């Protein structure tokens, strides 16, 4: 559980140096937590988020943990309180870096945004609906071979959109409603 107010000096998240400072603070918090973490980042109190700041806070943060070869650690993110204008900046940077992330509405409903294939999205939704799932669940539902379904879930795990747990998968965002977020304060 992580609750931390950052960016208290500024009323809006704009400029690269501000974004880099916020990201560093989040990374330092994550370094203290351990090797495996689920982190909720809450934008509810953020006024403006511009493209440069979104690139530093969202894209560069994710890039450290979704690296196929050598991710920094096993950290998953859920983003809450994303407004329409935040979304514009966040989607732009996700597209630029070919990333995807999970957002969660106030009612707990989660969805994927960013660059994600149709079958990958469908697989994520199936696991999300099931609560916990394995390759066979996805293979049956979308007509993939078991091998391809396993590979797809592994890719989604490497992209930190699924959590691997006891030889099965849980969708990021499906069990985070009660957790305390990292708040990006305005």
């Amino acid at each position, binding site marked *: 559980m992580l609750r931390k107010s950052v960016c208290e000096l500024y009323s809006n998240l704009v400029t690269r140096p501000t974004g880099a400072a916020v990201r560093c603070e989040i990374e330092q918090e994550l370094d203290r937590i351990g090797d495996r973490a689920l982190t909720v980042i809450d934008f509810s109190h953020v006024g403006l988020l511009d*493209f*440069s700041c979104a690139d530093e806070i969202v894209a560069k943060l994710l890039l450290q943990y979704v690296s196929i070869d050598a991710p920094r650690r096993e950290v998953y993110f859920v983003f809450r309180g994303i407004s*329409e204008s935040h979304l514009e900046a966040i989607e732009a940077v996700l597209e630029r870096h070919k990333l995807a992330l999970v957002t969660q509405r106030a009612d707990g409903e989660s969805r994927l945004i960013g660059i994600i294939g149709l079958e990958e999205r469908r697989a994520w939704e199936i696991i999300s609906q099931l609560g916990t799932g394995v390759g066979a669940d996805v293979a049956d539902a979308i007509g993939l071979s078991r091998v391809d379904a396993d590979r797809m879930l592994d890719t989604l795990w490497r992209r930190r959109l699924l959590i691997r747990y006891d030889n099965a998968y849980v969708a990021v965002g499906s069990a985070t409603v009660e957790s305390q977020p990292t708040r990006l304060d305005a």
Partner: protein
Amino acid sequence: MTTIINVPHSLEDKSFEQVLDQVAPLPLDEKIIVDTRHARWASPYGLTALLALAQSRAERPVLYVPEAENVSTYWSRMDFFKHAAELYELQGRVRTTKAAETSVLLEVTSISKSDDVHDVVDKIQQRAQDALVKNLNLDAKITMRFTMALSEVCQNIVEHAGRGGWVAVQTYTWRVRLGGRKVVVIAVADPGIGFRQSLESAPGFQRKERWDDGQALEETVMRGASRFRDPGRGQGLAGVRRFVGNWDGKLSIRSGTARIAVLPKGDWDEDEPLVEDLSYFPGAQVQITIPEHVA
């Protein structure tokens, strides 16, 4: 030797070229007198560019201030003289007034560091909602997008110019092209290294067969090139382009000897997408124009 530079009655992005045509051939250390005595009107672009012009000179220039009282008081309300006094030797009577200028969303403001961008964003958010939604009949969604665009063009100075610049934002009625429609205009000007030199400073930069200010503007504005290898760079101007496209606006950027324009879908502007072989002026001068929504 001292040369008098005549400033046209109406000073905006196009007519400022007349100023640069007079200044560009002169050695940097030659004394100039910028004569605005007969100016009747100046856009935010005109005012910010006048300040960048003074910064670009090695010898502190003289500014003959406007003679018309309403022009002088307006330039005062825009905080133009406050900054000009540090860059020019002012000659003539500067008139001041305590009255607030309702059409001014952001007075001429210095931008040289990241905190300046925060100050601009904080300040304009308080004023933008009324101006954009009530006065220009634009959807409420524009306020945040407008401020994002403003933030990004201001950051270009901090990140790329190599020296400080200026920003100003104002609403006014554009009588010439829009038949009396109101517009909101963001103007950002700096006398820094400009787009071409910025790209040339990229690691491993290789000059193309044809390489000039126009090419540098096309690479940066249309293709998102940046001097940084980081693929996340170059998104700011891409976002500004999307913003003006979504609101039938216009983006124009002048750097060196060229000016590029992202033109509106509507027919309210007849500018050329790329104009080259202009008189040289260092740095970058950006203008974003968003017209009033007419049902």
